[in-house]
């Protein structure tokens, strides 16, 4: 292969890779910078995956029974029903009471009118599930898991999201308004200090 062709192919490959990675970063940053904050009560525990490492598996769900009344849900078999629910988008509206900042006002196949429409991670019947993987530092995740498991009944756990132009991304999990990362970091430092003193 001639030199010019080598350079052309290598440059094109590099450009495609940087553009794709940059696109991922830009999508997240735009939603975080411009999006509206959404807080949903959640539960969480600490599993791991081979590529991205440890994360908090966050279970944040809201209820919504307002699905297009013309949809013949009763006539659908299980498979069609599952595919139908996969396609739904959710309209979020500020909640008037309760620990969640928003409620799901409506579920539809396409955004229907004005408002904050987002694509949830999943919908099954009336339950709307939001993105649930908060990747964390390898050493902080087990601490976060322990803090979560040992929290009191009164402690309010919320998953913090940002939503913008149909996208919703998770940014943090908070216990009584304090970031789980911050709590895990404090617990780690305290454990290190105690170890040092011991």
């Amino acid at each position, binding site marked *: 292969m001639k030199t010019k062709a080598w350079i052309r192919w290598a440059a094109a490959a*590099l450009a495609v*890779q940087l553009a794709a990675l940059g696109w991922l970063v830009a999508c997240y940053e735009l939603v975080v910078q411009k999006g509206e904050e959404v807080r949903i009560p959640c539960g969480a525990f600490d599993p791991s995956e081979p590529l*991205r490492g440890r994360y908090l598996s966050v279970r944040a769900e809201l209820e919504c029974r307002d699905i297009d009344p013309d949809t013949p849900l009763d006539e659908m078999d299980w498979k069609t029903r599952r595919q139908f629910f996969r396609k739904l988008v959710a309209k979020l509206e500020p909640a008037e009471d309760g620990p969640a900042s928003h409620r799901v006002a409506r579920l539809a196949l396409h955004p229907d009118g004005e408002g904050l429409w987002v694509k949830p991670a999943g919908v099954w019947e009336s339950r709307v599930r939001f993105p649930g993987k908060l990747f964390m530092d390898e050493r902080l995740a087990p601490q976060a898991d322990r803090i979560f498991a040992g929290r009191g009944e009164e402690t309010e756990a919320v998953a913090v999201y940002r939503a913008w132009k149909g996208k919703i991304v998770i940014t943090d999990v908070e216990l009584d308004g304090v970031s789980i990362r911050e709590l895990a970091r404090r617990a780690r430092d305290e454990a290190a200090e105690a170890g040092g003193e011991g």
Partner: protein
Amino acid sequence: MDKRTWIKNEIAAWRAEGLVDAATAERLEARYAAAPGRLSWGILLAGVFGAFLVGLGVIALVAANWDAFGRAARTAVAFAPVVLCGGATLLFAAKEKTSAAVMEPMGVLWFAAVAAGATIVAQTYQVGDSVAGLLLFIAVLAYPALFAVRARVATVVWTVFAIVWACVKADEGGKSAVLAWGALGGIPALSAAAWTWAVRCRGEGALTASCRGAMGLAWAAGLPLVAVLAMPWHIGDDWHWALFFGAALATGVLERWTGHKAWSVAGTLVAIGAAVPTVAPWHHGDGLVFLFYCISLAYALFLAVQGVWRRNLWRLNAGTLLAAWLVLGKFCGSDVPFTVKGVVLIAAGVALWALNFWMVRLGKREAAK
């Protein structure tokens, strides 16, 4: 026997038989003694693996302070290896250093850089839900680089990526599982077709060799995976390793039958691939897992000894690296601080380079005798 020793012996034989005179023989010897500025595959692999270990060590040192970095710093860490590999390839291409000796390790490094970059970005920016999606993203993103540098080893490894993606997707079920099952069946079939095409159209060459390698790998790694997924009865997960070791052995036997070295290389790669996950943490009652770990360790040592015995750097490095992985994997899973892990990994990388340096010197000394 390497090519240089072979040609030296041949020239001596020609001279003895009177096919060439003394002057021509000297000129020929000088030509083939001076020409090889090329590095052997073994040294190339050692360079890449050594760099890989040192890179892991650096990552471990960075990971020790990972939570202190912000999103911007992590993004810079993710982009840097991709930019460096792409930049280096452009630089080599501009200087017309596009031989396999340069571009093969470059392809492996670039592939690893893309995988690492995509993984760090996905982790930092909470991107994607499924592992299969990320695997496909990495595979699609890495392919243009592999095409650009014409890297055969990396292309063969890429086949594994595609197979793993197809298996994960098929296992997850759903609509795209049909595509995944198609890909699983298609990879061996397509590689066989590509091989046939390459043999008919181009004869022996780089493309034929890479097609053969991909085919060997697709059969040796792909078929056991299909067997595991499609088997109507359940076998214990731990026995999956036996399937892979068996397939690797069968591929080695095929090499004897067909006479193509690419099959043996594919078999070795699959056996290494089967051995790599045995380093996973053991739990109570994991006797079988421990047995496969011991088999893997024995296989690694066998490869290394075979490498020294045959003066084959490729096998020596593959065995050494596998043994290092199995031992260091257990070490890294321990509670030792990350800083210590980083230093040990860097030391292992340097030791691998030193081992190769010793092997090369030994080879030169023997050649001189």
